[in-house]
């Protein structure tokens, strides 16, 4: 993997999300919100506000949809974990 990132962040697939809000409730930093927009299935999907994620992984583990949430943890540079 050659991707690198400075801060942890979640990636939510707006099309796969079913808008159940479990992740919103589980986020300790309240940085997930339900979008006012609908996805193609008619769900108001969950969105990351863009900053404040601490990489706890809660949204990943609480989300019932296998591929809706990906969380990039910590400050990751290829080959090393800090």
């Amino acid at each position, binding site marked *: 993997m050659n991707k690198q990132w400075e801060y942890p962040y979640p990636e939510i697939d707006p099309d796969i999300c*079913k808008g*159940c809000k479990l992740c919103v409730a*589980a986020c300790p930093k309240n940085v997930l919100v339900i979008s006012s927009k609908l996805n193609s299935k008619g769900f108001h999907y969950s969105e990351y506000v863009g900053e404040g994620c601490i990489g706890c992984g809660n949204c*990943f583990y*609480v*989300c*019932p949809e*296998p591929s809706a949430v*990906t969380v990039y943890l910590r400050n990751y540079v290829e080959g090393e974990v800090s």
Partner: protein
Amino acid sequence: MAQKTVLRKPKGFMDVYKHKPGTEKDRTHYCPGCGHGILHKLIAEALEDFAVIDKTILISPVGCSVFAYYYFDTGNFQAAHGRAPAVGTAVSRANPDSIVISYQGDGDLAAIGGNNILQAANRGENMVVFFVNNAIYGMTGGQMAPTTLEGQKTTTTPYGRNPLSDGYPMQMCELLNQLTAPVYITRTSLHDMANIRKTRQAVRKAIRYASEKKGFSFVEVLSMCPSGWKMDAVRAQQWIKEKMIPRFPLMVLRDNAENTGPIERPVPVLDPEEVKKVLGYDTFETTGFKKRPGTMFRKVALRVAGFGGQGIMSTGIALANVGMKYGYNVSWLPSYGPEMRGGTANCSVKIQEDSIGAAECTEPNMVIAMNQPSLEKFEKLLVPDGILIYNSTLIDVEPSRKDIRVCPVPITGIADELGDTRVQSMVSVGAFAAVTGMFDPEEIKSLMPTLFAGKSEKVRKLNEEAVQKGYDHVKRNF
């Protein structure tokens, strides 16, 4: 294991759900907020982390998780309702090195499959059972399950579950904890992050135990069914906490793995010769008596019926044995039941050159009726032109059918003249030999040591005589 840098869809899942019909091969069929998806993810993650995806076989139940096989990149079976532990047993026994997961809902496991789970647990099958307790039948629209709470409204308990008419919520962990064999029994919940993480630990522990062949693990997971409960997912988590947990306390009921070694099952005996030996058939030989191709009966489909105690089963067994000695294919199928206590008992016997399919004679070509009720019951089953031997000592009503051949033999009377009504059986064997022409009475007599192994010479002689008398009677009169 190295620390993860990314949490993403675990490899325990299929990349694309190619077995799922329709176009949505990138998402599950579960309702928003359904606990099944969360547990699926924890399982799929553990399978990936332990690198055991390829040796895992998952048994899907009937219920909302019926399609688990769309999602898991493991070996998959889908079992009949409640039968996942039985299917899992077969899979585990046949593939002792595999990790077997039985994934079941509470309707599936605790209602229709209630006994299946108890028996598999009691045998300590090497498998993990994930038991999703959502207090309801989800798939069929929210009916009462065995785990439904007291007072809980469901579509089948519109006034709330009333223990007086509907019983109490069944606590499956506590029930299974009465058994000796299970190694790990725990109840966890998905109602908040701390408990999802505890569930994750339980999932991982159970899968690890299975890979170490520690035996039977049972992980009950309290799980949201927002659709069935008619509330949003977050409220459903709250409902678990407030309503379910008081009834289903979260705890590890048993964790004995420390003291348990890997299960080593006795090696099954599969060698036919070995099986024959244990059953005492290793010295069994056909007599070499010549079959008589010209006999009127190429295929015997016989029903022997009478009172319990009239030697009905013995007649059947004797004839089947005789047939086998002559190298025919034979079958013997007893029909017991309440009839053991009087009434009619009966058995089906087939003796034929060809191999035998069904052992039951639903359309017999021959009936031996030892009493009136048997005559009434089985005469009508005979095929046209079939033969009815009936015990004229005890039956004084003539058979009614005109399209069959009738052969009254005073079976009980002949036996009584010989001084022992227990030889009725052999009288009817003699009569059978005369009617079918399949065996010679002398040949049958030569088999007495087999048929009456362990009996005295006197008993054998008496039975030989009985065969002869039955035979002679038929020869003389028909």
